[in-house]
């Protein structure tokens, strides 16, 4: 039992977290999509933030679109990064 407890932990502390290069590639791909989304969402978010404050006028007729597309890209960021991390966290110690 004592052995059972310490084994995976010892494994993790000795840098030998088992992410191999193929798994790392999966995680990095998810992470890339996440940060591209963050960049798009951030730029759109600034436009929306300035519009909402009355400091900038955006083309009319796209009120819902502006709000939605910003939120959407932020959500992509959270979702894709969540998968990236959870996958890495799962594969790290468990492989």
């Amino acid at each position, binding site marked *: 039992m004592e052995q*059972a*407890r310490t084994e995976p*932990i010892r494994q*993790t502390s000795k*840098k030998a977290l088992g*992410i191999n290069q*193929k*798994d*790392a590639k*999966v*995680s*990095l*791909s*998810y*992470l890339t*999509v996440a*940060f591209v*989304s*963050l*960049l798009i*969402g*951030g*730029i759109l*978010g*600034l436009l*929306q*933030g*300035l519009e*909402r*404050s*009355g*400091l900038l006028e955006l083309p009319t*007729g*796209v*009120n*819902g*679109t*502006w*709000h*939605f*597309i910003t*939120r*959407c*890209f932020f*959500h992509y960021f*959270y*979702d894709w*990064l*969540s*998968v990236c*991390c*959870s*996958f*890495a*966290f*799962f*594969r*790290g*110690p*468990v492989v």
Partner: protein
Amino acid sequence: MFNVRKLAWVGFAFMLTGTALVAVMIILNEASVLYTFYPPLAAHPFFYVGLVLLVLGIWACCFGVFINYSHWRKAHRGQPTPLLAFFAMGVFVLWFFASIGITIEVLTLIPWSMGLVETTNVMVGRTLFWWFGHSLVNIWYLVAASVWYVVVPKLIGGRHFNEKLIKLVVILLVILNIPGGFHHQIVDPGISLSIKYLHVFMSLAIAVPSLMTAFAMFAVFERAGRRLGGKGLLGWLKKLPWGDVRFLAPMIAMIAFIPGGAGGIVNTSNQLNQVIHNTLWVVGHFHVTVGMSVVMTFFGICYWLVPYLAKRRLTAKMNRLGVIQTIIWTVGMVLMAGSQHAAGLLGDPRRTSFTTYGDHSTALSWIPYEYVMGMGAVLLLIGVLIQVYAVFHMMFFAPKGETEFPVAEAEDGAAPAPMWTERWGLWIVLLLMVVAMAYVVPIMDFILNAPPGSPPIKTW
């Protein structure tokens, strides 16, 4: 035989296609239905198809992890799962069961938006949406919490908290989570006060594991700080590595969760919800909880996960840039969330473009707060640009080398988590029972006492 990596790639392909399809439909102005896409606002059918692909992608990742988990358990009989993997398992279990509600909703909306079905039941759609909608934020939060519990203690030279208690928090967050979304419907018609009261209780129950998290984290910090020689009541605070972005960013994230959680309790209680429902207060709330607690943890993760995965090193220079980014982000978020909370209390609505409602004096009084919000947005974009630069720099240009994957160890002589914590079958049954308790009565009521349905409507 499916393996987890193949399924993760399948998920990647599905999610990317779904993401692109949804984004294109919105940009074409065929789907200006907002994130909540409440029927009878009707988007182009491809928008809903994109959402289905997105969910299928997530499910592929879920199944990959479930299969991997069962293999690992078979190969390591009698061993509790390592903590980080246990968190990841919780994330994917919650993700799978939370997305069932929205999948049913979207599948009924596809034929409706195509004109094959004339009308839809809007309250059922809305309720299924919120079965999913709030758990999604909690999924991100659970990912962040896994780092707070398991990675941050290592970064400050400490040990992680009692393993049994940590796993119990994960289990509670997974089981209790889904009904938490109901507080979005507190001012809805067609739901009795007693059902709403039950839901206030079920939502507030999630505060208990969160309060346990607060206790555990501060206990870990204090112990680590004292071990490093911190004296007096708060002397240990000074011993923490504030100059290390891998610690600083998630630490501010954790502190932000205190006002964030308090605001959440406001949002979920009957009468207070009525004061702030659909005002900018709510937007301020999720800028604190998601924009700070979740996102800053994610940013902090990047400074070790990206170099680790890319086989590169975090340089002192990059660490300094990270600290600056963290400060800019914190100031931006405080300005933005602070002004939104204040404006919301004065009645400024969310989900609208700039408006003075014909120069009504009440609406004009909101404008100063909205300016502060705009200033926050400028700082936040600067923060985004630095962060995106940092991530891609660490991925492709940082010096090559080995980076540590920081995982904290247990205290010496600490007992391992008991094996009953691994009974995911039982946790899933309990989760389904909680969902049934929350949703069977209202959804059956909406179906059995349904008004004539609504046809698809496009108002943009």
